[in-house]
């Protein structure tokens, strides 16, 4: 095996590209720094990575920065072709699974009881098992209440698999959030009557679009 010597920025970029293409997990900057003997500062690394990202612009694969580091992934537009190579399509998660995931993602850490309280129905153990099996949630502790129920939170893999760099990048909760924040917050403290004016409720009384999203999602599953 001949020995490879790195001279130009191009040479370093090739090593970086090969490492990112071959890595089974996203690579953090700290890990990437192990690649070279030379110690580049963060700005140089940023330039190198941005440059590599640009090299891949307009292709079927892109370099993305995720919660746990950098990784190459195929662009969603290409999935329709890649799906043709698969023997079975990946399952779409049921509404029970997605709602449980949403509660854990937005309200974490939560117990199973919290999830049941919000959804108004018992949570099947299989729903939690599905999410744990995917590596998207795990137990981060136990609440100090009778039965010491497990507290669930989302994982890095959840963020990675959904292309998020942090929980702050979760889609913001709907506009009803604002209305509730502005008007229903006192409800949580003193439980007064919610304001009943018709005009204020109009914003949320519009037929929401979310049912459509689910209808189509369910139909394809």
């Amino acid at each position, binding site marked *: 095996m001949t020995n490879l010597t790195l001279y130009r920025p191009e040479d370093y970029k090739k090593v970086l590209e090969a490492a990112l293409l071959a890595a*089974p997990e996203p690579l953090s900057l700290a890990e990437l720094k192990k690649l070279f003997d030379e110690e580049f500062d963060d700005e140089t690394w940023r330039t190198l990575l941005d440059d590599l990202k640009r090299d891949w612009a307009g292709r079927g694969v892109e370099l993305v920065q995720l919660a746990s580091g950098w990784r190459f992934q195929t662009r*969603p537009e290409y999935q329709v072709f890649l799906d043709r190579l698969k023997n079975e399509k990946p399952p779409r998660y049921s509404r029970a699974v*997605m709602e449980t995931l949403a509660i854990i993602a937005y309200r974490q850490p939560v117990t199973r009881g919290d999830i049941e309280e919000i959804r108004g*129905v018992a949570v099947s*153990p299989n729903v939690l098992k599905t999410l744990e099996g995917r590596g998207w949630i795990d137990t981060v502790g136990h609440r100090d209440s009778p039965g010491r129920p497990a507290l669930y939170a989302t994982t890095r893999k959840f963020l990675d698999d*959904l292309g998020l760099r942090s929980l702050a990048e979760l889609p913001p909760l709907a506009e009803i959030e604002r209305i509730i924040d502005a008007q229903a917050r006192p409800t949580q403290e003193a439980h*007064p009557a*919610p304001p009943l004016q018709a005009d204020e409720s109009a914003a949320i009384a519009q037929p929401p679009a979310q049912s459509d999203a*689910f209808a189509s999602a369910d139909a394809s599953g």
Partner: protein
Amino acid sequence: MEETQKAGAGGNEGVLPGADSPRKVGAGKTASASPAPHVPKLYGEPLPELPRDLYIPPDALEVILEAFEGPLDLLLYLIRKANINILDIPMAPLTAQYLDYVEAMRRSNLELAADYLLMAAMLLEIKSRMLLPRPTKTDSGEPEDPRAELVRRLMEYERIKLAAARLDALPQAGRDFEWVTVWLADKVGQRQPEVSVHDLQLVWLSLMQKARVRQHHRIRREELSVREHMGIILRKLQGRGYVVFEELFELDGVHSSVAALVVSFLAILELARERLVEIVQSEALAPIYVKSVHDEPHALQA
């Protein structure tokens, strides 16, 4: 997933089957449910009339029931469908409509209706409290609306339902894109130990210490570049018999500085001193030849 849904619909968890697990309500039971009296019954008590806004044809019932995730979901559906202001829910018609559905579900599958029955009880309680004079809170002076808790829960559930749809819309690894992982080359053999200059230095130092203790004399560190050139020159001589002295100097390479020439010269002298090379000159001013001593006696190169 398949298992999850089956088990989820299995019964004792009280979860309605998801819309994507078409678990049809038994045909026989549906048949008995469909021709149910046009006037719905509430725990055996016939309801006087169906609220017009909330009316859903009985044959749509089966389809709709399967799509609900629970009582909150069903209530939200009824509210949104009737375009009711969630902050001012007319409890009487909503409760009546809800109970109508629950009754149909009870007939379809008693076991699954537990959560729904709990909600039915809650709705009936709110409805009856609405009829009573409301207690006035001492601190705020505002009367407490019996619907407040229900509204809070409905809105929280709606937010989560919406959030779940948005999460589901995000590109998802394995569904909407794939991770790229190329193979490592097959030809890559066993990983070789890495040796650094620092390792070498430490080993040499410890060797020197040991040698000093053992031999009571110091091994003199010699000029490295002379030793390096001794190796270079021996390599040049290898298998070539007598080589012209000047050929052993690099006059146009990276080593062609004056210092390098001196080092090469010293290396040749050192090699001769250690009797590793033989230097011959037939007469004064004639070409000088150098030969590695172990080399087979080749013909003298002219």
